[in-house]
């Protein structure tokens, strides 16, 4: 027997795919293929290996960028949340970064770092890091002060108070920042392939569009969305394993 949430997920997926198929058959636009055509293209690209070579390219800046953003973003966010001085120094940078129009920055990045991997990693980081930093710092700042006081009164060291009280208490919001950051990182990775040099999945999208092979183009877009969803689910699983008790609700007076 499937659980209710799973059932709902399957149902909503079916509705979306059904709507896609119908829209493709009307057709809404001659450039909009049906769901089945797109899936056929996806299967073809999977079996002839095109997709794997493409992801080999795309995942490099994506994974590197997300790893950097996660490690650096959480550390900087912690520092900002813990120290007013650091907040003053760093917060404005990330607020500007989050607000900045990325497309306008790309030419600058290309000028500074060329069209290689470095620029693409930068794009992923610029997309992913601000939300991770800002979520982490606000979660850390909002740790209930009575919990911190409790830690001090039972003689916890500063480090223990950070690792045993502040981080676990902030973890739900840190993880929601990570989820947002990772989604933004995916957008950044594809954007960099569309705007800097067409490689990987971005190349499939650009190329199929130029030869009007719309099913392949949509298949590539679909695959990246699928990958992002799988990745986010993985993240949720990790969170549940690491901070089991946080699913158990909060106690207030």
């Amino acid at each position: 027997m499937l659980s209710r949430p799973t059932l709902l997920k399957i149902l909503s997926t079916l509705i979306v795919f059904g709507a896609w198929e119908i829209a493709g058959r009307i057709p809404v636009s001659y450039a909009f293929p049906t769901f089945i055509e797109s899936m056929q293209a996806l299967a073809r690209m999977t079996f002839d290996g095109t997709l794997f070579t493409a992801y080999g390219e795309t995942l490099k800046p994506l994974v590197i960028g997300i790893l950097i953003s996660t490690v650096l973003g959480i550390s900087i966010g912690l520092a900002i949340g813990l120290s007013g001085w650091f907040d003053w120094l760093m917060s404005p940078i990330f607020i500007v970064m989050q607000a900045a129009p990325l497309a306008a920055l790309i030419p600058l990045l290309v000028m500074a770092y060329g069209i290689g991997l470095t620029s693409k990693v930068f794009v992923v980081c610029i997309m992913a890091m601000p939300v991770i930093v800002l979520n982490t710092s606000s979660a850390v700042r909002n740790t209930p002060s009575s919990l911190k006081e409790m830690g001090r009164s039972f003689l916890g060291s500063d480090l223990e108070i950070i690792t045993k009280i502040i981080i676990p208490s902030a973890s739900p919001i840190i993880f929601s920042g990570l989820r947002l950051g990772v989604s933004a990182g995916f957008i950044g990775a594809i954007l960099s392939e569309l705007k800097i040099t067409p490689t990987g999945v971005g190349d499939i999208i650009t190329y199929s569009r130029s030869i009007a092979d719309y099913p392949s183009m949509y298949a590539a877009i679909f695959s990246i969305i699928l990958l992002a969803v799988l990745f986010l689910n993985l993240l949720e699983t990790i969170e549940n394993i690491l901070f089991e008790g946080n699913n158990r609700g909060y106690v207030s007076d």
Partner: protein
Amino acid sequence: MSQTKEAFAKATALDTEIAVSTRNICKNYGAVEALKNLSLDFPRGQLTSLLGPSGCGKTTLLKIIAGLLEPTSGEVEVNGRLVTGPGPNRAFVFQDFALLPWASVMRNVAFGLELRGVAKSEREAIAERYIREVGLAGFEKSFPHELSGGMRQRVGLARALSVDAKVLLLDEPFSAVDEQTRRKFQEDMLNLVAHENKTFIFVTHSIEEAVFISDQIAILLPRPSRVSEIIRPTGFRNRDMGNIRRDPEYLDIVDQIWASLRSYVE
């Protein structure tokens, strides 16, 4: 009234050793004068209540004694040594429980020991004993949100007891429980005071509660906060617990405290 006077007479002939003493404590929060020139001694092995209207600085005083807040001026001594911060000789029971929501009852109770670096098996053995003592046996694996308010409060109490500090600071520990449970807790508290050789500093809003469980009651008045009276109920302390509430001295003291506090309750 005569019995009350008698109690006051005894109060002056104080011979117990002093465990905690506060001298000329002032505490300002910006423009708010929370405490002004407050001096108070807490005898060893006894329970002292801080009683007073809301906002008169009871929590503030307790946190200053705990070393969690710096007084603006004045000093606190515990066992003759000046307090500069939290120490192993004091444990705090928080008004809002301060339990870790992601940790089981067992981990919460053992958390004080965990922070002191006690090994896991050892601290869990100690925690288990105190979980039983506060009547939560069987709930070791529960999480705080699965407990009632009164049970959460008892988790906080067990945590403070398990670090075996000589001075226990309790900030309205029974505020979250119903009247029946409250009476039961008060009796448990009297047993605790009788059997553990600890000094209890106990904040409460309830006049009856203060008179029932205290060896000494300090009445605080607000703006600026100061100790207005110290009352030592002595006559009924050695009687059977069930009869305390019928004791004329008990009733007299309750009346007298109400008379001095009523002008502050509009």
